[in-house]
């Protein structure tokens, strides 16, 4: 099965994606990871105003069959949580890069996303050969 990986995003080894727009980062979970988890029943996210540290656990996502941690892809402060997805996590798979965003994070002006992976490299990594 093949999934979309928009080119304007950076991806983490732990399957979060980041869309960086100035000092606002929109964070979600890649379509591949959502498919792997299967039916999602619960998402736990940090709260507005929480400080996040890159690489640390900031929440988790639970499906019928497994639970996975969600890692902060960047250091910053939570600006917004997508309550629609928290209330109806089963909808996450429908549009993971659009309506299915999870957090908006305020990051520093000089934020570096060099640890992120390009869409092509991420696709190669998860779909393999």
């Amino acid at each position, binding site marked *: 099965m093949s999934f979309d990986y928009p080119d304007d995003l950076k991806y983490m080894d732990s399957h979060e994606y980041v869309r960086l727009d100035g000092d606002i980062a929109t964070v979600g979970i890649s379509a591949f990871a959502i498919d792997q988890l299967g*039916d999602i*029943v619960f998402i736990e996210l940090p709260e507005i105003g929480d400080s996040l540290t890159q690489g640390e656990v900031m929440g988790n996502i*639970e499906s019928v069959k497994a639970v996975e941690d969600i890692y902060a892809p960047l250091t910053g402060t939570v600006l917004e949580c997508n309550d629609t997805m928290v209330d109806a996590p*089963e909808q996450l798979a429908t549009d993971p890069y659009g309506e299915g965003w999870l957090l908006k994070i305020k990051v520093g002006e000089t934020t570096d996303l060099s640890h992120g992976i390009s869409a092509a490299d991420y696709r190669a990594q998860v779909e393999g050969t």
Partner: protein
Amino acid sequence: MTPDSRPTPLSGQHAQLQAKMMNFGGWDMPVQYQGITAEHHSVRQSAGMFDISHMGKFLLAGPDLRAQLQLLVPSDLSQLVPGQAKYSVFLNPQAGILDDLIFYFDGYADSGIEQGKLIVNAATTSKDKAWLLEHLDPEDIGFEDVSTEKVLIAVQGPRAIATLQTLTPTDLKAIRPYRHQGGLLFDQAAWFARTGYTGEDGFEVMVDPKIGQQLWQALLDQDVVPCGLGARDTLRLEAGMALYGQDITDSTTPYEAGLGWLVNLDKGKFIGSEALQAQQEQGPERQLVGLQMQGRHIARHDYPVLAEGQEIGIITSGTFSPTLGKAIALAYVPSPLAELGQELAVLIRGKPKLPRWSNLPFIVVPNLEKLRDNRHC
């Protein structure tokens, strides 16, 4: 294919349906096709089918087959009539459960030789085989392991029997719950057992691989939904059925696991009978109970259970129940706490989350009580 695992004869069917696969008990098995929740609902509301060819399948025959098997299980097999099945367990001398199983008593061949089948778990097949060969008298008992030679398909749900009936001249309605019978499928030999692991009515059908592939396709053509191990787990857990290796192991006894109903201490000695006798007199120190989480967190296998801040037990199985829309779990807790209905907490990623006590099974499955009643026979 997952490494180091054996494909079932239906692996081509699973690939065609783009199933997600995993290694389970040494077999390459489908976890899910369209998704666990949808598959689960199809079994509760209509009909689903499972490739369970990974299960261990033994054919046994001998003049005193049941008398010899009696020594290995706590249930009384002597009362079984031909065509009857019995759910039971193998025990070690401490009454720890070595495996759970269904014994299907076929009846008598020529000259009164008893015949039967044993269906056991995939991961324990070789261990069970060694156990049986060690304890059954090889002079008297014929033993054949057909685990890798036969296809076993479970067809389960309110529409299962009517759909399966369109494919066979064998009168399926005449086979009552926990009964079984040989019959025909596509003019070939087939074996129909009215048993299952979902809490729904239905059959488990054992056939040769080619017939199995034909049966799978014929059921698909009638919109029977292919279901993987994921849905099998949520269905059996809702129905309060134990999973070997999690809820029952060699360090849990039938009394602890809520399986006292399959123990018959009056039938004579068997492996584990003395330990069971002692436990029956004293009562088990801990017992398997049902919990339903109040929030949306799922209590999963191996999560600690707390009472007044102290760890007092462990979750053995936990999942999200698609039928209830709630997280459900089985846990071992000390018997006094269970009897008092003491307030508990489950430690989920470092935080205590509150469950409420639940009766078992978690859901009302009309057929289940009927099945349990029958299993007492």
